[in-house]
């Protein structure tokens, strides 16, 4: 309670102090007068010997206070007053920082959600993903591969490092019997999937061990979202039957809200592998997640997996030779897809903030120079250097905290847009938004930004010579060149940083342009695509399956406006199946050593739908049916690789996964970018015929039309439903939309980076304008003298422009050097050009130089209008 009493008794205390000092002086004066001085002289002498009364009082009071806190409050009050008095300065500064901080907040909220937040699972640090590492001979450059059932089972049974290991299969189920037929993302998982993650269903239970047995697996856990949309959140959902791919599943559990692991799962069913399926070793298709035992670290786990893999490779050399395993953290997987782009953006917004900071530092310095006299007076009255620095810093921190608040508002909108885009690329749902961490981050960078912005100006001010400042008028003369120099350094730095950002954006824009116009090997215009998936319950035999697809194709081909209609198992650009093949003329080797190529399943007419050129031989026709001898088309790169100097027509290729005899090559077609526009390496591929495939349950219908493809949607849907009313019509997309989707990430990166670079350019030009305008004011007298001596307006104009040009050029040179080092970091995001693409570097420099000159234009014009008479009278 001592401090409380003190707080209240302070006023009395200060009164006593003043009285005491007054008495002290009086006593001294009296003594001096008694010694023969005049009263006036005595008063002067007494004061001189006493020192500064104000300072003494202040120092004495300081003893009783928490000086730091109280000074700060005082500074804040003063700062608010100053800011209110110069609304234009405040508005510009606050807005500048709001943009800079807002951009950072938005990107940080994503980084935070993706990188920093622990996965919403039990002890997530111990959760691993175990991938196959495929033999490099067959899969050059591929470092991670999904796992085959038999290998997963051996891994699970033979390891001593994981508590649990679960396999996850991906797929889509046709959901029927609940209104419109639809296709839902389902995951087939081993029984311990939920317990491994430590996820407890909110209703019901996870899977039992016996449900993972063939014949017992007709149970499902549904996602919270699915529960809400399909059962209206009703609690008696347990025990209800749902029809997936025409099989009935009993709902046994509801997963917690937001749980959709992996990749937007809507429901989970047991793997329930048959003995036959369990024996599959060479066909890979499952993701394996595992939980480390408490005392085991990753290195130990890795070496154990190496041992097991080596053993399996020896034991089952036909399938497993060359196949290793790699143990990775689950949370690293989160980062993998969006990480590199995110870091580029994070760097970019950091630069934007740096520029914003510099601009505010500039503004503050300009304003502070105008206040030099006030500050000199404060110093003369005994303000310490710390107090002066505190004063300036308080002002800039106030600005940036207000800016930070505004930034949250701005960020809110940007975040929504980014979250919507980035969500599907992450293996689990993350909460991207303004949570406590983001708010803390924003507050922290706001304060930091304020400090950085204020540090330069305040250092400059306290360095200034007291006497000089007091002597000066109001800072209108050209005496202060050092302030100008500091500002010039700021501006050159701004130009440099903007250039780095602009070059980054320029590279992304060029990348997108090159991607969009890349020759993909097919023609995406006027093509509509629809996904058709059927269940092997309803369409049990291959005859029934092919009957369905052929029937649909017939119906669609009959529609008005349809030129050609066909089907393929995976559309170009979207990846798809890779399989080992045995090629005629190549040595006979076990499967593990066979070359892997892209394998697509097509119906007749596919080449014409996608306008894939036939280079040699013939296209497949309806005559190539189940009864005819099997035929196959190969791509040019395939033919080049295996039969470099021979005619490929008539050669044979055996798809190892398929039963029956080898297929005869009847045609050679152009290479298509099957794995995305940015994959320029030709994909060696083969096309085999749906009619000759032993089982087909999933195809993408592709329709070429003379009409705008979107006009066909309802007619195509009706045609499909005429064949099977329960068939869900999903993924209805034009082929151009498929192309756009495939580069969506590039586009988002480009848009964001360009926006940030544009912001940087704007801020930098404001900075240049500010410095030039200030310089013109400062050089008014000099210009006046020059004009009086006979300088022409053009000379004056040149003088000012030249100064601006010098700044801009310096900045550009530094910026170019920095870009050479930094753009390398975004090389993985680029396509078709080098990270130091000279055209981008030169083009962007010219743009920046032009903008810089434009920013100098107004101040330079103003300088030409300086009237020498007025200028020389200035003082």
């Amino acid at each position: 309670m001592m401090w409380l009493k003190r707080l209240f008794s302070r006023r009395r205390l200060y009164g006593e102090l003043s009285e005491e000092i007054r008495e002290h002086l009086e006593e001294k004066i009296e003594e001096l007068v008694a010694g023969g001085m005049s009263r006036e002289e005595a008063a002067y002498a007494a004061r001189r010997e006493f020192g500064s009364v104000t300072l003494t009082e202040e120092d004495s009071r300081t003893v009783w206070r928490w000086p730091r806190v109280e000074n700060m409050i005082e500074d804040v009050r003063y700062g608010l007053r100053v800011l209110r008095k110069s609304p234009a300065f405040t508005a510009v500064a606050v807005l500048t920082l709001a943009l800079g901080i807002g951009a950072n907040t938005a990107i940080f909220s994503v980084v935070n959600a993706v990188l920093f937040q622990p996965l919403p699972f039990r002890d997530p640090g111990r959760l691993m993903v175990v991938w196959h590492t495929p033999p490099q001979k067959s899969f050059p450059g591929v470092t991670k591969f999904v796992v085959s059932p038999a290998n997963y089972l051996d891994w699970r049974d033979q390891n001593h490092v994981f508590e649990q290991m679960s396999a996850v299969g991906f797929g889509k189920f046709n959901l029927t019997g609940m209104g419109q037929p639809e296709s839902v993302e389902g995951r087939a998982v081993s029984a311990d999937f939920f317990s491994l993650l430590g996820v407890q269903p909110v209703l019901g239970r996870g899977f039992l061990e016996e449900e993972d047995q063939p014949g017992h697996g007709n149970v499902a856990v549904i996602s919270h979202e699915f529960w809400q949309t399909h059962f209206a959140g009703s609690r008696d959902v347990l025990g209800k039957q749902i029809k997936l791919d025409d099989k009935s599943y009993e709902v046994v559990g509801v997963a917690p809200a937001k749980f959709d692991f992996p990749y937007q799962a809507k429901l989970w069913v047991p793997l329930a592998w048959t003995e036959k399926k369990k024996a599959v070793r060479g066909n890979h298709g499952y993701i394996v997640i595992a939980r480390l035992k408490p005392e085991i670290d990753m290195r130990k786990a890795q070496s154990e997996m190496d041992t097991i893999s080596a053993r399996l490779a020896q034991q089952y050399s036909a399938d497993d030779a060359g196949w290793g395993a790699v143990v990775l953290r689950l949370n690293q997987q989160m980062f993998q897809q969006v990480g590199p782009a995110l870091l580029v953006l994070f760097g970019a917004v950091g630069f934007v903030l740096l520029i914003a900071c510099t601009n505010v530092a500039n503004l503050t310095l300009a304003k502070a120079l105008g206040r030099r006299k006030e500050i000199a007076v404060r110093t003369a009255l005994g303000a310490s250097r710390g107090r002066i620095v505190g004063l300036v810093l308080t002002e800039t921190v106030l600005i940036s905290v207000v800016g930070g608040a505004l930034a949250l508002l701005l960020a809110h909108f940007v975040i929504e847009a980014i979250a919507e885009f980035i969500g599907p690329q992450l293996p689990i749902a993350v909460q991207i938004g303004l949570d406590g961490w983001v708010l803390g981050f924003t507050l922290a960078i706001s304060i930091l930004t304020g400090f950085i912005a204020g540090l330069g100006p305040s250092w400059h001010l306290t360095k200034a010579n007291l006497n000089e400042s007091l002597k000066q008028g109001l800072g209108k003369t050209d005496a202060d060149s050092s302030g100008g120099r500091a500002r010039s350094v700021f501006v050159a730095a701004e130009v440099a940083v903007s250039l780095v950002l602009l070059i980054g954006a320029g590279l992304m824009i060029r990348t997108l342009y090159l991607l969009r116009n890349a020759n993909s090997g097919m023609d995406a215009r006027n093509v509509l695509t629809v996904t058709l998936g059927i269940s092997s319950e309803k369409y049990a035999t291959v005859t029934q399956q092919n009957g369905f697809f052929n029937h649909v194709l017939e119906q669609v081909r009959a529609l008005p406006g349809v030129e050609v209609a066909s089907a393929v198992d995976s559309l170009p650009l979207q990846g798809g199946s890779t399989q080992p093949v045995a090629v005629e003329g190549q040595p006979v080797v076990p499967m593990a050593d066979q070359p892997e190529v892209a394998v697509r399943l097509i119906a007749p007419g596919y080449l014409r739908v996608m306008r894939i050129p036939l280079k040699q031989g013939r296209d497949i026709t309806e005559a190539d049916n189940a009864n005819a001898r099997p035929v196959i088309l190969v791509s040019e790169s395939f033919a080049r690789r295996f039969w470099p100097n021979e005619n490929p027509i008539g050669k044979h290729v055996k798809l190892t996964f398929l039963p029956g005899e080898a297929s005869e090559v009847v045609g050679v077609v152009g290479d298509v970018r099957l794995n995305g526009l940015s994959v320029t390496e030709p994909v060696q591929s083969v096309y085999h015929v749906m009619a000759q495939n032993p089982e087909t349950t999933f195809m993408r219908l592709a329709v070429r039309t003379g009409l705008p493809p979107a006009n066909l949607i309802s007619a195509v849907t009706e045609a499909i439903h005429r064949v099977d009313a329960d068939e869900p019509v999903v993924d209805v997309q034009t082929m151009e939309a498929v192309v756009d989707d495939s580069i969506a990430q590039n586009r988002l990166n480009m848009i964001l980076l360009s926006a940030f670079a544009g912001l940087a350019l704007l801020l930098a030009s404001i900075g240049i304008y500010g410095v030039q305008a200030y310089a013109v004011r400062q050089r008014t007298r000099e210009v006046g003298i020059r004009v009086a001596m006979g300088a022409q307006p053009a000379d004056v104009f040149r003088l000012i422009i030249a100064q601006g040009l010098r700044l801009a050029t310096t900045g550009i040179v530094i910026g170019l050097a920095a870009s050479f080092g930094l753009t390398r970091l975004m090389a993985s995001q680029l396509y078709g050009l080098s990270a130091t693409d000279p055209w981008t570097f030169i083009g962007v420099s010219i743009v920046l130089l032009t903008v810089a000159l434009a920013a100098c234009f107004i101040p330079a014009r103003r300088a030409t209008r300086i009237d020498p008479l007025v200028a020389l009278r200035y003082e």
Partner: protein
Amino acid sequence: MKNREQRDLFPGALEMMILRTLKRQPLHGYALAQHIKRTSNDLLQIEEGSLYPALQRLLKEQLVKAEWGISSTNRRVRTYKLTAKGAKHLAHEVSRFEKMLDGITRVLAPGES
């Protein structure tokens, strides 16, 4: 201000001198200033004003206490008095200072190296 450090000789010196002076007799501010100046043969050019912050510090630490009264010259003055705690503090500081001085003297003594 800049030369404050020079005035203070070393941190705490002024406080020590005040305590030492008050140990002999209670005094008010002005008398205290005069006394210190006089006894130091005007060697210590302290600004009289700097006495007051020092006194406030000592008050806060309860090393001295103060009372308003009437001086011999019939003025309303505040007289400072050493407290028991102050006396103890002084003894401690003086012994510390003497040790330090002893050390310095040894180092500065000529011809012993």
